[in-house]
């Protein structure tokens, strides 16, 4: 029986620890959308939504929804004190202009050079859709990708060169998966943490490009230090 990898919620929990106090943050579709619930209590961050919200709060309670106040995933949300509304073009002044401290997106593939593919599976039916991910990827001061380490067929999603349509090149700073935390550096991929119970060598097996790591790679943190 294979060892248990982290759950999607645990990936989100680990990713939440990357948010510094006072940061302006955009969270994308998928695992990133789970992160807000795990922000440590002593940390205050401000969530941006590319449809024109800064200071977005939790989802609206059932019965209290305002369908004019939705996030980028059409989910009714709330606004925290100090939040503001603005137009979509101003929302993307914030993304593309480099004003967001950290953005966390889902991923289909990440290359060893930090290229990201996350908007379309080759050969998929339909028109596809880019949304805001390209603008967010190029503009983020720090871009974190959260995803499962391997695809459903077991093939690595961290690859030498992305074979899927690209979202942006040379944009990813850190990858957080169900097996590891990996930094993209000019010297290549650096294995910073491994999932509890896994060894660096095991993580390397599920990763196409070569990982650099020290002799003592710590286990992934799942609670605030």
């Amino acid at each position, binding site marked *: 029986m294979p060892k248990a990898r982290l759950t999607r919620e645990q990936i989100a929990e680990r990713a939440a620890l990357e948010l510094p106090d006072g940061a302006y943050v955009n969270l994308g579709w998928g695992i990133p959308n789970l992160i807000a619930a795990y922000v440590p209590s002593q940390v205050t961050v401000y969530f941006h939504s590319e449809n024109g919200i800064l200071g977005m709060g939790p989802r609206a309670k059932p019965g209290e929804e305002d369908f*004019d*106040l939705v996030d980028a995933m059409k989910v009714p949300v709330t*606004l925290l004190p100090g939040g503001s509304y603005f*137009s*979509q073009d101003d929302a993307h002044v914030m993304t593309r202009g480099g004003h967001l401290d950290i953005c966390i997106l889902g991923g289909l593939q990440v290359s060893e050079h930090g290229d990201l593919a996350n908007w379309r599976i080759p050969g998929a039916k339909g028109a596809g859709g880019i949304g805001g991910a*390209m603008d967010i990827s190029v503009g983020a001061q720090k871009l974190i990708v959260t995803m499962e380490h391997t695809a459903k067929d077991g093939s690595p999603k961290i690859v030498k060169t992305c074979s899927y349509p690209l*979202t942006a090149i040379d944009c990813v700073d850190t990858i957080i998966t169900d097996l590891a935390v990996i930094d993209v550096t000019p010297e290549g991929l650096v294995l910073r943490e491994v999932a509890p119970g896994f060894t660096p060598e095991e993580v390397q097996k599920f990763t196409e490009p070569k990982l650099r790591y020290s002799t003592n790679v710590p286990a992934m943190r799942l609670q605030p230090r």
Partner: protein
Amino acid sequence: MTSKEKVYPTIDAAVADIPDGATIMFGGFGGAGFPNNLIQALARQGARNLSVISNNCGTGEGELGLLFKNRQIRRVVAAFPGPGAKYFQEQFDAGEIELELVPQGILCERMRAFGAGIPAFFSPVGVGTEIASGKEERVIRGKRYILEQALGADYAFIRAYRADHMGNLIYHKAARNFNPIMATAAKFTIAEVEEIVGTGKLDPEAIITPSIFVDRIVQAEGKRYA
């Protein structure tokens, strides 16, 4: 006080003169701020062969869906047509609709450029991706950029919260989204609004779309969400 009366008596009257072949921008994102009354009136009016610029392409018959169902649309510029855009997706798969897929922020920025008299600009978005295909690339101060073109339209159909008789607009929460920028990028802007108030009743510090960008105003009916 306004000498050119901008307030129209009915929604149908507000779209009566839209010609076949027009290019129309539609505000709205994620279910909020779509000009659903104007869309439904345009379906009744029947203009065909339309080019549309919109983030989404409808959900079933809702939002823009009705215009696709009626086969009134020939060409689309969109960032995220959407999996729920049943009629669009069917016609796209059948090769009946031409689609230009644009990153969302660049969709905004190309419209803003048009409204601001800027014909083209360099952008970091999409460099090295299929979005860059066919576009001029240039290195500026050590970084790669592609050249994007301004995007205008004959008409903007928008949704606002309140208008005064002069055409000043304010919006409601995240229903603002694409509406203000489209108002600047179309030759002619038609706004459906929840309430029309007397000129001077809106706070001049809080007006989001000044009257200069609005040509026609009409009271929306109950259908806030299609």
